[in-house]
């Protein structure tokens, strides 16, 4: 069980509360979490990763366990507390004014 916290705009788009729960077996990676989010909520396809390049969008960040995981390769396994559902995987819209 993976807990994922989504930013406000993606919650509105998918019509969900801030935290969703995904069932992913094994030791999931960031990419598998995003795959699972997009499979369950097709309206979120492309909002976190550029559909053409597969790269994380520049103003989207992935946090967990008080660490910024954004610069790790997307195929990096998630931290154990996230895999065990103790900590949430946070999808964050970067801070910006205007």
């Amino acid at each position, binding site marked *: 069980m993976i807990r994922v916290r989504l930013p406000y*705009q993606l919650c509105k788009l998918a019509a969900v509360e801030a935290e969703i729960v995904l069932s992913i077996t094994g030791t999931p990676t960031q990419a598998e979490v995003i795959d699972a989010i997009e499979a369950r909520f097709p309206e979120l396809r492309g909002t976190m990763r550029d559909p053409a390049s597969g790269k994380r969008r520049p103003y989207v960040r992935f946090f967990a366990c008080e660490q910024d995981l954004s610069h790790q390769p997307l195929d990096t396994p998630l931290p154990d507390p996230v895999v065990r559902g103790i900590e949430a995987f946070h999808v964050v819209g970067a801070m910006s004014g205007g």
Partner: protein
Amino acid sequence: MSKVRVLVGTQKGAFLLEADGQRKRWHIEGPFFAGWEVYHLTGSPADPNRLYASQSSSWFGQIVQRSDDGGRSWRPSSNGFDYASAPGTHQWYDGTPHPWEFARVWHFAPSPDDPDTVYAGVEDAALFKTTDGGATWNELAGLREHRSAPDWQPGAGGMCAHTMLIDPSDTNRLHVAISAAGVFRSEDGGTTWEASDLGLHSDEIPDARAEVGHCVHSIARHRDRPDTLFMQKHWDVMRSDDGGRSWREISGDLPSDFGFPVAVHAHEPDTVYVVPMTSDSLHYPPSGRLCVYRSRVGGQEWQPMAKGLPQSHCYVNVLRGAFAVDSLDDCGLYFGTTGGQVYVSADGGDSWEAIAHDLPRVMSVEVQTLS
């Protein structure tokens, strides 16, 4: 009784403004897609309840929204805008080759007779088409693969296919305007394209009369005179009477021929509207007085129409897609400003009233005339 629905896309969401045919009392709904940029919001001529919205953000990319009930409810449709072939490169601001990258949808052009068929003009410049109401989008790659495309450069707002016209008398005849490449026309439904810039003159590019490279801000036509096109170029207001093959300047006595939108009266094919801005350095009205200019003779001779518009300390702009024309007997005009005002004229431009004063920056305005 007739009524109108004005579709307003802003930097922070979309708004629907409705009134009866008098266009005096307005009901405003919104924001829809709050916090997102809505580059364009438009309706199908074949089914006025079918609306399409381009919702985008620098954070989360492109979303396409569709409504089947006139905007009361919306649901996301596909945002799969994948170039159909290896994208190649275009010129970047510094003159170096830059890979073609999808950024956003600037413009939807719904088919006049099928609500499920819509063209989408996008940045980086290309044209996509759906025939299933937005479930899938397929690129008409002939435009992006035009032999001149490696030389195209972005304007300040990006390299965008921002305006598209479908000839209502022959829906295989298409025109697309790209900043800063120029106008392209297709006679075969978008399979093949020809540059359509003969007669344009732009001092801002090395060869002022080059085949491509002109910063065309918008184009418009009257449905009953499909071979006559009007253009607001970066500088210059232009006219073509041969379907865009050649152009001549009609700026005439305008106080400035720099501006963004151009529009044609619903019932008078020679009545044309522009909104002059001071210059490309000063994107605000001359002398701080907001004024629409109307020509009733197809250009050259223009009359200012300022009644009801701010005539002092007004420093807003009117963007290329932010001017619309209804088709009621007393033709109505609508435009939105970068200051968040939306103005209506129910008498062909003679007088204006503000429908809304404090919306976010207005990026697009369309109007539906409903029976």
